[in-house]
């Protein structure tokens, strides 16, 4: 005999539904009959497409999370935010400089940050969002890049910000500037790219191109896997 499912009450855009306990918000909405056209992607907490906000009964806080990663609770009031309107600065990474004014020049609204910390509280990735905006304001690109590294661009910070900052775009520029101009170069990579360009592996590649899928599969399964090691840095 099938075990009876325990049900919880949730409110989707104000309407009450009963859904099985233990579902994620995303699955609960589908159970209730909603179909995702936008606002769903990887369903695994990586793509940032399913930003959601909700309140719980008797609690003043407005919670922000990813619908695919959060389990429904009894008495949850929720809504999906399929999209965050946000302006992205237009730049040519090859032509811009990484200095202490770059971020505030492209996104002067970061100067409006009042340190209310609402962005940090809203971040489903638990990043120190306010801290990276503050680092951006004072021109510390490396710190902004580091603190925002795990950002999945769900947009919840930008929707909650009273200063109307678009945090994740600022962070993306910081990471791009960091990657292009500030991070220590991986010398082994440069060397390998040069070798490829010089045709060092052409013969081997040609040989592989002639092989059948079966042979390739066999080769792939028997390949050597390099042990993971620390990336060499400039000081090495």
């Amino acid at each position, binding site marked *: 005999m099938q075990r009876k499912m325990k049900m919880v009450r949730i409110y989707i855009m104000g309407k009450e539904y009963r859904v099985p306990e233990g579902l994620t918000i995303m699955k609960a909405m589908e159970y209730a009959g909603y179909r995702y056209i936008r606002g769903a992607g990887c369903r695994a907490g990586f793509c940032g497409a399913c930003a959601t906000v909700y309140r719980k009964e008797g609690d003043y806080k407005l919670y922000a999370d990813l619908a695919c990663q959060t389990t429904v609770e009894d008495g949850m009031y929720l809504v999906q935010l399929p999209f965050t309107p946000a302006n992205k600065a237009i730049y040519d990474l090859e032509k811009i400089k990484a200095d202490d*004014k770059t971020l505030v020049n492209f996104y002067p609204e970061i100067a409006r*940050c009042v340190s209310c910390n609402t962005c940090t509280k809203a971040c489903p990735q638990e990043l120190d969002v306010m801290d990276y905006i503050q680092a951006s*304001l004072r021109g510390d690109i490396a710190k902004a890049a580091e603190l925002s590294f795990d950002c999945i661009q769900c947009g919840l910070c930008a929707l909650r910000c009273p200063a109307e900052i678009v945090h994740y775009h600022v962070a993306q520029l910081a990471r791009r500037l960091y990657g292009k101009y500030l991070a220590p170069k991986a010398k082994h990579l440069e060397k390998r790219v040069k070798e490829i360009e010089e045709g060092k592996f052409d013969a081997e590649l040609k040989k592989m191109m002639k092989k059948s899928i079966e042979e390739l599969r066999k080769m792939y399964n028997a390949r050597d896997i390099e042990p993971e090691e620390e990336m060499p840095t400039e000081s090495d």
Partner: protein
Amino acid sequence: MQLANIQGEKMEIAYYPGCTLKTNAKEFEESTIEAFKKLGIELKELNKWYCCGTVYSLATDNLMYRLAAIRNLIKVKEEGYDKVVTLCSICYNTLKQANLMAQQDEEAMYKINSFMDEEPDYHGEVEVLHPLEILKGMEEKIKENVVKPLNKKYAVYYGCLLLRPKEVAIDEYENPSVMEKLVEMLGGSVVNFPFKNECCGAYNVVSDREAVVERCYRIVGNARKNGADAIVTSCPLCHFNLSEMQKEIKKTDFVGLPIYYFSQLMVEAFGGRKCKEK
């Protein structure tokens, strides 16, 4: 002040930099840290700090703009200090005014503390200091360290925010003398300078640049007429307005002056790097 009595032994004090000290006013930060080290005081930068919000918000109900200042003071407390020193005049003014509010306005602090529910409560436990206040009582120690006395004439420029509102003034608000005394201790001489506590135009440089160019013309021009070789200040925005706007003055009778932070003069007199002549 308690701090000033500490002679000889090494001491440490929390340091709140502010955004501009990490960018345009890097030389202000470096020279102050260096000069204070000579005097046996180590300025320890806070691990976490946030833009103070610059200009203090004045509306009775605008607590949102005071969050940043209070959050910084909480960080000072959290990191185990009871005093914090900040170099920039605007940061000083904002942190100090916010701290006064924290000490006096219970209702405002109830709101702020409940809003910042992720932080411990704050009620004004920290003391906000400007380096010039600390230097006030260190006359002997300063003189001891002078190895290359300054030999120029300086116009000392306080601007507004070290002196006003008077509740946060680091000195007598209409006729301060702490910076003059410092310059003289360092071997320099001081000229009369009626503009010393007049505003440089501040953030008008963003919206009305011409107005600030005009202020710069009058302030720097007057310092020059009074025989100064340079102007000394403590504010990164005064520094920017008085130095950068000189380049935009079109009047032919104008001859500019170099602008220094007081700490750069200290470093020079203590035998360190000389101030750039311009």
